[in-house]
């Protein structure tokens, strides 16, 4: 039996030869991964719901501890990054590999893949930075994963107004808050790193074409999913 290397192309057709899902493997794989991520967040968010439902006392009032305006800004950043991601996707589908280009008759320049993906990366990095700042401030005030730190400002406030600050369940509040938002932040960080990698290895060398931009679509799916999780988290953690 001889194996000729020229048969390789034949030998490894890039995609299925059976109907399958009708989508290429990377995208299918990403969707399966997202399904699995749904279960991961189910474990975290589900535990939060269960713990909060069965908690021995009232949770702290929304806004009592967490800085909602700051997080609102963060939510805005993430939504913006999501739309810029999808704009990047649309740009490369239309073959716009460039950064910015003048369009006759329009005041604003037209953004290409390089522009929109950069915006996404900046917004994503901004989100992570704001979250880090938020964590530092919260821990500084005395809000830790174990509850309100003894002797901190927050512990004093909570002792004065136990209802507003949900003193009895502070431990649960800290635990679930930091775990959920922390793992979301971890997901965002992973996404930003992957996008940076793609940006330098694939986007800047203009390796994507309207015929094949699988990387952008796949990372886009991940990114929107992270956004989607945040939308849920923002509501149930910060607003309720």
């Amino acid at each position: 039996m001889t194996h000729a290397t020229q048969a390789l192309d034949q030998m490894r057709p890039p995609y299925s030869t059976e109907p399958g899902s009708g989508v290429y493997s990377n995208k299918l794989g990403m969707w399966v991964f997202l399904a699995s991520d749904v279960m991961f967040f189910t474990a975290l968010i589900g535990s939060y719901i269960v713990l909060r439902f069965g908690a021995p006392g009232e949770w702290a009032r929304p806004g009592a501890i967490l800085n909602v305006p700051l997080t609102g800004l963060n939510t805005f950043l993430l939504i913006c990054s999501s739309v810029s991601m999808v704009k990047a996707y649309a740009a490369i589908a239309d073959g716009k590999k460039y950064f910015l280009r003048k369009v006759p008759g329009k005041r604003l320049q037209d953004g290409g893949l390089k522009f929109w993906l950069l915006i996404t990366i900046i917004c994503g990095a901004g989100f992570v930075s704001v979250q880090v700042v938020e964590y530092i401030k919260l821990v500084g005030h005395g809000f830790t994963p174990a509850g309100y730190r003894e002797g901190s400002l927050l512990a004093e406030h909570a002792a004065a107004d136990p209802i507003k600050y949900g003193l009895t369940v502070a431990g649960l509040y800290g635990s679930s808050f930091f775990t959920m938002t922390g793992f979301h932040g971890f997901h965002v960080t992973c996404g930003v790193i992957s996008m940076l990698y793609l940006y330098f290895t694939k986007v800047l060398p203009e390796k994507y074409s309207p015929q094949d931009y699988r990387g952008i679509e796949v990372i886009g799916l991940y990114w929107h999913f992270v956004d989607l999780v945040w939308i849920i988290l923002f509501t149930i953690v910060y607003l309720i």
Partner: protein
Amino acid sequence: MTAVAHTPTTAHHEPMSFWRKYIFSTDHKIIGIQFLFVSLFFLLVGGLLAMQIGWQLGFPGKPLPGGGILPETMVVNGVILPEYYVQLVSMHGTFMVFFAIMPLLVGVYANFLIPLKIGAHDMAFPRINMASFWLALLAGLIMTASFFVPNGPIRSGWTNYAPLAARPDLSGVTVGQMLWCVSIVVLGLSSVLGSLNYITTVINHRAPGMTWFRMPLSVWALFITAILGVLALPVLQGAAIMLLFDNVLGTHFFDPVAGGQALLSQHLFWFFGHPEVYILILPAMGMVSDIIANGSRKPIFGYHSMVFAIIGIAFLGWIVWGHHMFMSGMNPTLGSTFMVSTLLIAVPSAIKVFNWMGTMWRGNLRFHVPMLNAIGFVSMFTIGGLSGIFMAATPVDIPLHDTQFIVAHIHYVLFGGSLFALFAAITYWYPKMFGRMMSERIGKLHFFLTFIFYNMTFFPMHIIGMGGQMRRIYDPTIYDFLKPQQPLNVFISYSAFALFAVQILFAFNFLWSLKRGKKAPQNPWDDNGMEWSLPNPAPHGNWERTPNVYRGPYEFSAPEAGDKDFLPQFVKLPTDRDPVPAPLPATH
């Protein structure tokens, strides 16, 4: 991916280095073999732990032979300490479930068989596949490392019920518990990566003509298992992370003192854990189906219902987890619900058993070693399944819950089930992996001795469990009602040692045949699967050209086959037409 095709005959002209080819390989077959060696090693570790458990239960307080080499924190004057005993049972479970049976079934055979059996050239994501193996190995090493840290490995059972697992001051374990959690998170990532690879491969990479209902049952089972893995493992990861944070960051998820819920950890664990049980048995069922059809020289009986039974078991697997918690103080109404769904699992399981028997009915049975082990699987799995009914019926579960009866049950399912299937599968696909046959004579001897000692070891556990012996107790003789049963415990221990000793035969057969085994013919078992159209071992990339599939996988003794009694999927008869390849999916 750059991949270069080769055959064993051209292997020494191979440009790829040893490292590239065997260590950092992206070839699904090599990765499967890597998994095989690593998980057989962990199987040995788990077995050694089991032997120590057996010693302690049979001869409590007597010095363990050779126990002197163990450090003073585990064994003093040769006597196993209670905390070490608890660690033994915890780590035996952990190693066997997570690092032996699961990788043996899924890591080895999903990797090895799926592309070969569906006519694919490799996995959909070969590099992710490699990452999956290395993460699994890393997880295994982290878990092993916990034996060497202060206070040793976990002491809360492989299930790690909180608050025992969440509070170092109560369990006495600090670093070991963290390592367990970290290892499980890494292993979960490995499993998710592996599983999404299997799912994508099965969906997208089937050869032309390999329609869904022409897939062998082994592939079906591995596919459904992968779905379970993708959805179940992340829940375990979440639970392990919360446990880790409870230990390290001082969070209070499972700490009732601060409002956490102890039962939440059990719910999360078993929500993962029950699908995990099916991860550990479905692939075995699938591979046994293939082997029984081959050994009976008959098409599998009721192929479609077999497929739907697999899907049914997998679906029911998500709504029965509460049966592990009947005594936990949960809502009795939930108990009733879980009881009914649990009992219903008997239905697809019965379908499978009866269909295997139907396959053998009026067959022309060839008793090669895989077939013997497969028959052993069917008979032992039946006992394991039937003993499950006792515990599924909630009132009867009350005296049996957390006794040796459940230990007997799980070993009938996992050892009598999964492990017999694995002995069958290893022997059956050994020629495909290494190009040589395992010794038939040793294989048969190993099967019969294993079958005997296995039953002698685990069947009496039902009886001592009925007598009320709790599981995981260090010394049953301190209870008056357990004292009369001690002779049976001694009997079990002797049988267990014999059972372990018999496995040396298997190890010898496995290792000896690597070099000295008989050269395998291309299709040693006269099988129909796509993999037998390739030389043994198959080259990287498998097929030169994507093969065509002409029929279902079980056309044994088909009238069209003429004087042969098998008709492989890849053989084109004059009446067959080539399948039309589907259009490629768009790349955006």
